[in-house]
C-alpha cells in the first residue's frame, strides 16, 4: 500500500500534470456526452452487448478462431503471459525479425512482452508517442489511455534533449511531436513485425477495431508484413454491427473527444501491398500483399473471472479511462499510486484481482472511497465501487489480525473477524457513536485528550490533524420522543430516518428537518432505526452491512406499509437504500424501501410541487454556496436542493468538483489525510472564488460538512437548516 510519504511524493512530483490532464479529460467527457442525444440508450446497448458476449464467450471464441483461420490468419489462445510471450517470440523468430514496432496496447503491457522480445535481441519500439516517451524514460504508464499523463511538456523536452541531443534543443509540443514523428517514422519503415492490441473483435468476420488518434497503429500494420494482435479474450463481440455503441462512446467517455481520429476496422490480412519504401521504379500496386496475421487471445485469469459472480462485470470494461478521470483521488495521485501491475483507476481493482491476485489489488484499492462518481460515467455501467468493496471484503477475510482487547471492546463484530482494527473501528461506528452519546461530554473530552489521540493514532491510524466528531448527549431520537407533533391535519405522514450522524453528532440538522417537514404539513415520527451499514460497507465488511440492511428494512418497511414516507437526511445512507441494498435484500423488500424513501430536500421539493403551504418557511433574498454530495449527485438529486433554495429566494452557486475528499472515514486515516486535503483543496478554491467567497456555505453530506469545516473559516450547514428561521 502506498504510504503517506509515497503519496506525498507523488503529489509533489506528478500531481500537477495528472490533475490538469485528468480534469481536462473529465470536463471534455461532460461536454461531449451532453451533445449525444442517445447517450443513455447507447450505454444500455453497450452494456447489453457485453453481457451477451461474455455469456456466450466460449461459443464466440470458437467462431472467431474459425473465421480468422478461414481468412488466412492464425489464432493462439494463451493461458497466461508466459504462454503468450512464448508464442509471440516464436513468430518474431520465424520471421527473423530484427525490429518489432508496437502501437499502444494495455494487454501487451500486462504480458511484459517488450522484455520478453528484447531478451531475444529484438528491437522493440513503441510508436504511440506517449508510450515512446515512457520507453525512453523507462517509466510505467500512469493512465490507461494517456500513459505519459504524469509528464509535463518540459519534462519530455528535457528527456528528449538529453537523450537525442538535437542540434536545436526541442521545446514546444509541436517540435517534440515533429521530432518523434520523424524518428519513429523511419523505424516503422524498417520493421518486420507490427504488434497491436485490439479494442473489439467481431467473431463473425474476424474484424478488429483499433481506436487511435495518431495513425501509428495504421502505419504499424501497413508498413510491416507480419501483424500480431494481442487481446484479452473479453474483447470478442458477435459482429461488426455490435461495434456501433462503443465507437460512439469510447472517445467521449475517455478523453472527451467525440471520436478519435482513427477507428480502424481491420479484417486481416490486409489488401494493402507490402512495399519496399526505397524502391523508386516499381509502382506500388505491383507489390504483393504477402502478409501474415497472428491473433493472440489472452486468458490470464479472465476465464476464471467469467465464472466469478462478483468480478465478471470487470470483463465488460472497454478501458475508456472515465473511472480514472472522474475520480477525485486519481486526479491527485494518478495511476502510479492508484494502480497495480498494469491497470489503473477504479476498475483496476477488478482487473488486478483477476489477473494478478488479491494482494496486488489490495495494494491500492483503499484509494477507492466509494464516492460513485465513476458509476454514471462508465459507458458499460459497471458498478466499480462495488467491485472495490468486494475485493476489500475478500482481502479482509484473507488475513488474520491478532485481537486487541481495547478495540475489540469498541468493535464487537463477530462476522468480520478478519478486517484490520482500523477498518473494524470505522466499520462499527454505530457502536462508537452510541457509546459517544451515552458518555458525552466525557467521550468528547476523552477523544480530544492527548493520550487517547496518541493511542488512536497508534492503534487505529487516525490522523491527529483531524478534528473528531463531537457527540451530543441527547440524540435526535431522544429529543423527538419528548415532544408533541405540531401537525393536526397532516398532508402526508413520514418517518425521518435518524441516520448515525444526525442522531448522535449533527442533531441540529435533524431538528431542523423535523421542523421544516411539520411546517409543510407532514406528520413526522423519528423512531429508533439501526444504522444503514454504510460505515461497515466502506471498510469492505459486506456481511455486517447486509445484516444492517436486513434490520433497517425490518424496521422501516412496516412504516411504509402503514402509509409513511421515509425521509433521509444523510445522502450516503440514502444511497444505500437506493443502490447497495439491491445487493443485500430480496427484490421486493429492496424495491419497497427504495421506492418509499426520499432524500430530505427531494421530499421538500415534492411537497412544494404539490402545492404545500409555504407560509411558514422563510422568504429571503440572499446568496449561498452549495456543495452537493458525491453519491447524491450520482443519484441525480442535486437539482432538488438547488430548486428548493431558489424557490425560497436564494441565489445558489454550486461547486462542480467530483468529491470533497473526506469520503466518510477516508480523510481520518493517517495514510490518506494529506491526499484527502489535496482533493479538498479543489473544493476550497471553488468556495473561495470571486463571487463565492462571501457566501455562506451549505452542504448535504456529513463528510462534506466536516471537510468544509476543516477547509474554511466559514462554518457550513445543511441546506435544510436554511429553511427554518
Amino acid at each position, binding site marked *: 500500500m502506498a504510504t503517506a510519504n509515497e503519496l506525498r511524493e507523488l503529489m509533489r512530483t506528478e500531481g500537477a500534470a495528472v490533475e490538469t490532464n485528468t480534469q481536462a479529460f473529465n470536463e471534455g467527457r461532460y461536454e461531449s456526452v451532453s451533445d449525444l442525444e442517445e447517450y443513455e440508450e447507447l450505454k444500455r446497448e453497450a452494456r447489453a452487448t457485453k453481457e451477451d458476449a461474455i455469456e456466450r464467450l466460449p461459443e464466440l471464441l470458437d467462431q472467431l478462431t474459425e473465421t480468422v483461420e478461414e481468412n488466412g490468419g492464425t489464432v493462439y489462445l494463451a493461458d497466461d503471459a508466459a504462454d503468450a510471450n512464448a508464442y509471440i517470440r516464436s513468430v518474431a523468430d520465424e520471421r527473423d525479425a530484427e525490429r518489432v514496432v508496437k502501437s499502444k496496447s494495455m494487454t501487451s503491457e500486462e504480458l511484459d512482452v517488450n522484455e520478453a522480445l528484447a531478451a531475444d535481441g529484438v528491437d522493440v519500439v513503441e510508436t504511440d508517442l506517449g508510450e515512446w*516517451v515512457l520507453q525512453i524514460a523507462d517509466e510505467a504508464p500512469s493512465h490507461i489511455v494517456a500513459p505519459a499523463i504524469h509528464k509535463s511538456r518540459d519534462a519530455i523536452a528535457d528527456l528528449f534533449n538529453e537523450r537525442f541531443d538535437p542540434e536545436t534543443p526541442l521545446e514546444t509540443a509541436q517540435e517534440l511531436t515533429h521530432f518523434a514523428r520523424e524518428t519513429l517514422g523511419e523505424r516503422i519503415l524498417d520493421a518486420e513485425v507490427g504488434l497491436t492490441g485490439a479494442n473489439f473483435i467481431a467473431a463473425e468476420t474476424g474484424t478488429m477495431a483499433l481506436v487511435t488518434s495518431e495513425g501509428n497503429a495504421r502505419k504499424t500494420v501497413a508498413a510491416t508484413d507480419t501483424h500480431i494482435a494481442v487481446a484479452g479474450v473479453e474483447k470478442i463481440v458477435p459482429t461488426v454491427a455490435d461495434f456501433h455503441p462503443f465507437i460512439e462512446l469510447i472517445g467521449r467517455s475517455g478523453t472527451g473527444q467525440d471520436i478519435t481520429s482513427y477507428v480502424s476496422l481491420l479484417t486481416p490480412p*490486409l489488401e494493402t501491398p507490402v512495399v519496399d519504401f526505397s524502391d*523508386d521504379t516499381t509502382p506500388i500496386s505491383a507489390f504483393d500483399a504477402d502478409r501474415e496475421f497472428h491473433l493472440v487471445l489472452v486468458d490470464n485469469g479472465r476465464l476464471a473471472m467469467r465464472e466469478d459472480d462478483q468480478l465478471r462485470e470487470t470483463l465488460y470494461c472497454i478501458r475508456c479511462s472515465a473511472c480514472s478521470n472522474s475520480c477525485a483521488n486519481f486526479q491527485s495521485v494518478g495511476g502510479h499510486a492508484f494502480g497495480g501491475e498494469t491497470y489503473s483507476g477504479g476498475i483496476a481493482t477488478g482487473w488486478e484481482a483477476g489477473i494478478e491476485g488479491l494482494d496486488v489489488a489490495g495494494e491500492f484499492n483503499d484509494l477507492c472511497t466509494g464516492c460513485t462518481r465513476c458509476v454514471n460515467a462508465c459507458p458499460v455501467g459497471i458498478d466499480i465501487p462495488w467491485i472495490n468493496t468486494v475485493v476489500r471484503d475478500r482481502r479482509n477475510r484473507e488475513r488474520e489480525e491478532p485481537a486487541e482487547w481495547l478495540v475489540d471492546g469498541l468493535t464487537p463484530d463477530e462476522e468480520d473477524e478478519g478486517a484490520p482494527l482500523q477498518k473494524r473501528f470505522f466499520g462499527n461506528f454505530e457502536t462508537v457513536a452510541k457509546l459517544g452519546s451515552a458518555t458525552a461530554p466525557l467521550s468528547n473530552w476523552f477523544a480530544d485528550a492527548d493520550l487517547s489521540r496518541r493511542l488512536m493514532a497508534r492503534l487505529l491510524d487516525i490522523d491527529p490533524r483531524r478534528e473528531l466528531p463531537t457527540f451530543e448527549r441527547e440524540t435526535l431520537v431522544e429529543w423527538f420522543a419528548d415532544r408533541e407533533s405540531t401537525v393536526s391535519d397532516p398532508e402526508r405522514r413520514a418517518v425521518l430516518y435518524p441516520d448515525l450522524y444526525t442522531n448522535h453528532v449533527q442533531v441540529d440538522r435533524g431538528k431542523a428537518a423535523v421542523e421544516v417537514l411539520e411546517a409543510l404539513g407532514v406528520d413526522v415520527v423519528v423512531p429508533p432505526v439501526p444504522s444503514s451499514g454504510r460505515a461497515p460497507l466502506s471498510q469492505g465488511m459486506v456481511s455486517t452491512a447486509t445484516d444492517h440492511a436486513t434490520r433497517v428494512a425490518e424496521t422501516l418497511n412496516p412504516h411504509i406499509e402503514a402509509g409513511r414516507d421515509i425521509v433521509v437526511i444523510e445522502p450516503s445512507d440514502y444511497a444505500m437504500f437506493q443502490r447497495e441494498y439491491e445487493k443485500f435484500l430480496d427484490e421486493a423488500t429492496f424495491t419497497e424501501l427504495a421506492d418509499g424513501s426520499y432524500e430530505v430536500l427531494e421530499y421538500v421539493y415534492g411537497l412544494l410541487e404539490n402545492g404545500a403551504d409555504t407560509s411558514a418557511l422563510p422568504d429571503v433574498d440572499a446568496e449561498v454556496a452549495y456543495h452537493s454530495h458525491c453519491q447524491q449527485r450520482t443519484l441525480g438529486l442535486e437539482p432538488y436542493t438547488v430548486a428548493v433554495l431558489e424557490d425560497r429566494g436564494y441565489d445558489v452557486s454550486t461547486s462542480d468538483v467530483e468529491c470533497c475528499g473526506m469520503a466518510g472515514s477516508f480523510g481520518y486515516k493517517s495514510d490518506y489525510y494529506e491526499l484527502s486535503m489535496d482533493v479538498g483543496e479543489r473544493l476550497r478554491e471553488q468556495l473561495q472564488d470571486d463571487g463565492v467567497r462571501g457566501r455562506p456555505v451549505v452542504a448535504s453530506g456529513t463528510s462534506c460538512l466536516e471537510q468544509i469545516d476543516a477547509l474554511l473559516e466559514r462554518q457550513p450547514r445543511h441546506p435544510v437548516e436554511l429553511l427554518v428561521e
Partner: protein
Amino acid sequence: MATARSSFESSLEDVGVSVTSVETASFREQLDETVTPPAVGVPLEEAFDEPSLSLADTSVTGDPTPATLREATTGVTGAQLGIGDYGSLALTPTDRASELVSLFVDRHVAVLRESDIVPDMDTAIETVHDEIDRTGHSVILATGPSATADMGALVTGAHGPRDVHVLIVDGE
C-alpha cells in the same frame, strides 16, 4: 440528402477538415487546385466505376513508386462514405495501396461522391458491416487529421496527415 450533406459539412468544419465541391465535368481542374504538389494518388475510376473521375492529365501521379510516395506532400484517394454527424470518412484499404497513399503524406485529399454521404454513425456502421461481411475488407473510419496530446498540448499531424481535405463530387 441535403440535411445529411449539410450536417456532414459542418461536422467536417468542427474537426478541422476543409471541403470543396465539384461537378464531375470540372473534376480535374478542381483537383489540381486542391492538391499541394508533389501529389500522388490512387486511380479513382475503378473505385467509383466512373471514367471521368480520372487522375490522367492532372498533376497527381497515379500509382506512384514507393519512393515517390515518400517524397509526396499530398495523397489523393477515394472515400467510400461520409458520415454526417461526425464528419468521418470511411476509407477502404485496397490492393492499389490506398492505405499508404492516405497515410504516409502530410495532406490527404479524399474524393467523395455526394450520394455516399450518410446521416449518422449508426447507418454508417450498418453499411460497413454489410460491406465487410460481403467482401472481408477492412475499413478505416478517419475523422479529422491525425493528432496527439502526448507532448503536453494538442498537436495535429502525429504519425498521419496533418491536413485533410474532402472533395465532394456533386450528384445528379
